[in-house]
């Protein structure tokens, strides 16, 4: 057997990783098409995710990639129709907040109606948007809407936190035969640090959380941009002798409850952190799933499952105020300390 050659890698940022995923999948399958506002002209399918579509128009032409008018409902609905007719559309809606303006098409048509219609076939639509948290852009730009779309029966929800995960999960999303909500996060998109992305194709399956940092004292479950803050918090906590394990869920639907349970079995304490507003946020779902999957683990927790999330207040356009509403690194450190203390 020949020696396994070291796989070639390239250093890419998240936008470049997305661009590579689009390009590979559009080359692989000519049914993959995409549209959205300014996806060609501004090369910016999701606000804050510039250049993700660079070069696609030149390579694949104006039939397979299209600029749309400002018609978010029609962007989604035409994707549904085209998917039913055999294409595999990627529909861009800029931000999670703008998805409120095409909520019925996403929640009720894409995620609900075609089951109700007993449609036995496939419905391969990827809806892409960005969560623009951390820059006081207000709710319409910064909303992280996962809790809302998790409540629709037919939607998978993907929220990666690294360029590597983004590429692998996006390729999986495009090959999925059913609807996928895919969210990039501003803080992931603008990271200076590039990541090593293999030249060789890889896919990351849905429903596999990733333990981004190991620890024995407390489990922090989170996703999307908050993973970056949780990792920074874990670093600080380490300085104070607390070993936090950071579990990046990566996909909210399907949810990898096993990985959480394994971690909590070890640490005995669970803190769920999310950027979205606390009330009726996704933390409740995570907690219930853990309780349902492993009542024994929950019974032996030393303190009840804890959540840290944005206060029940509208996202402001003032950074000063936003920083006091949405969990910051310091807040995560504090919450983890409290939980560990209480568990003792």
């Amino acid at each position, binding site marked *: 057997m020949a020696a396994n050659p070291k796989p070639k890698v390239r250093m890419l940022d998240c936008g470049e990783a997305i661009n590579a995923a689009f390009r590979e999948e559009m080359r692989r399958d000519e049914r993959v098409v995409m549209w959205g506002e300014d996806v060609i002209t501004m090369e910016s399918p999701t606000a804050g995710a510039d250049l993700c579509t660079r070069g696609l128009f030149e390579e694949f032409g104006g*039939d397979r990639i299209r600029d749309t008018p400002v018609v978010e409902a029609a962007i989604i609905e*035409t994707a549904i*129709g*085209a998917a039913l*007719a055999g294409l595999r559309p990627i529909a861009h809606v800029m931000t999670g907040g703008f998805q409120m303006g095409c909520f019925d098409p996403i929640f009720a*048509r894409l995620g609900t109606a075609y089951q109700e219609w007993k449609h036995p076939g496939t419905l391969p639509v990827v809806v892409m948007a960005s969560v623009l948290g951390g820059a006081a852009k207000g709710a319409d730009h910064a909303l992280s809407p996962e809790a809302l779309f998790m409540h629709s029966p037919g939607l998978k929800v993907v929220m990666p936190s690294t360029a590597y995960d983004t590429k692998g999960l996006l390729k999986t999303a495009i090959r999925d035969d059913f*609807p996928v909500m895919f969210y990039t996060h501003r803080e992931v998109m603008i990271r200076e640090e590039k990541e090593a992305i293999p030249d060789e194709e890889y896919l990351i399956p849905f429903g596999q959380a990733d333990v981004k940092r190991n620890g024995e004292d407390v489990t922090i479950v989170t996703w999307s941009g908050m993973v970056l803050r949780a990792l920074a918090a874990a670093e600080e906590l380490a300085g104070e002798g607390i070993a936090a394990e950071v579990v990046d869920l990566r996909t909210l639907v399907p949810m990898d409850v096993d990985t959480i349970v394994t971690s909590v079995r070890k640490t005995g304490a669970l803190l769920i952190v999310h950027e979205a507003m606390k009330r009726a946020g996704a933390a409740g779902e995570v907690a219930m799933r853990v309780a349902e999957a492993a009542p024994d683990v929950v019974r032996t927790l030393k303190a009840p499952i804890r959540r840290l999330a944005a206060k029940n207040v509208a996202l402001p356009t003032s950074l000063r105020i936003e920083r006091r509403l949405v969990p910051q690194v310091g807040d995560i450190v504090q919450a983890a300390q409290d939980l560990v203390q209480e568990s003792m």
Partner: protein
Amino acid sequence: MDIPEEKLLWMYRTMVTTRKLYETMYEMYRHGSSLGNFVAGEGEEAIPAAICANLRREDSYKPNFRQTSCLFAKEGYELADIFSGNLFDAERGYLGFSLALGEDVGVYTGFALAAQMRGTDQVCVCTFGEGTASKGSIHEAMVTAAAWKLPIVFVLQNNQYCGGTRYSKVYRFDDLADRARGYGIPGRSVDGNDVMATYAVVREFVERARTGGGPGLIVAETYRLSPYFERAPGEIVIEGYRPEGELEEARGNDPIPRFRKTLSELGLLTDEDVERIDREVEDEIARAMSDGRQRPRVDYDQYIQYAVAEL
């Protein structure tokens, strides 16, 4: 326009079948068959007949929600399908409809987009009511279809009523087809109770769409003889919103007797033909009902498999 004789007779028979289907289904509903809320489109049968006479199997067609059963007339479908419990079939161009009014129009626009992207000559005809036409999602669909010159014909079926609200109470103008100008696409009003006139307009618009000429908007003027919807026995029915005498007058313009008269004047239909067709259609419906109802129903286990992200 010269419409071939078989087409004319086919449309007549289709209209009669549509009407008798309503009657049959209403009976089933009254006797507790679980059809959900029952809606019918009596008085509006000419429009689906004129549309289906211009469509091919691979084309797509969305009837107005109260006329779903007229899909039997679309090439690819048959009467028994109507009783089978599920008409949905993207292959035959029916992508369902949205019980939340209006959200389906963009979906059908997507079908037309796929046809254009693939370079087929498929066409889509998508119908909705004048009430539904106020929904924002329809505006977005029409903007999109116009922007990309998609092969779709929108048919706005103006039956004068949206629930209990009369059209003229809400809208301030004579001709809804003017909406088309606002999208830069052709628009045309037609007497939707005149099946031959409707056929001609649909033909023109469908051919234009099929040959790359882009979308259009047809406004088919008609009248809703059926109630808003049939309530379950015991439920309250309020139908007092129609001005005195209006319903009776509208019955005088029923498209079926009207077309029957035209055909007999043209010498294409005798009294015996009329009776024979009535009988044949009734037999067909009876057969279709027993065939359709014998087809396997989607059961719970199948249902929960479809398009579920995580059980």
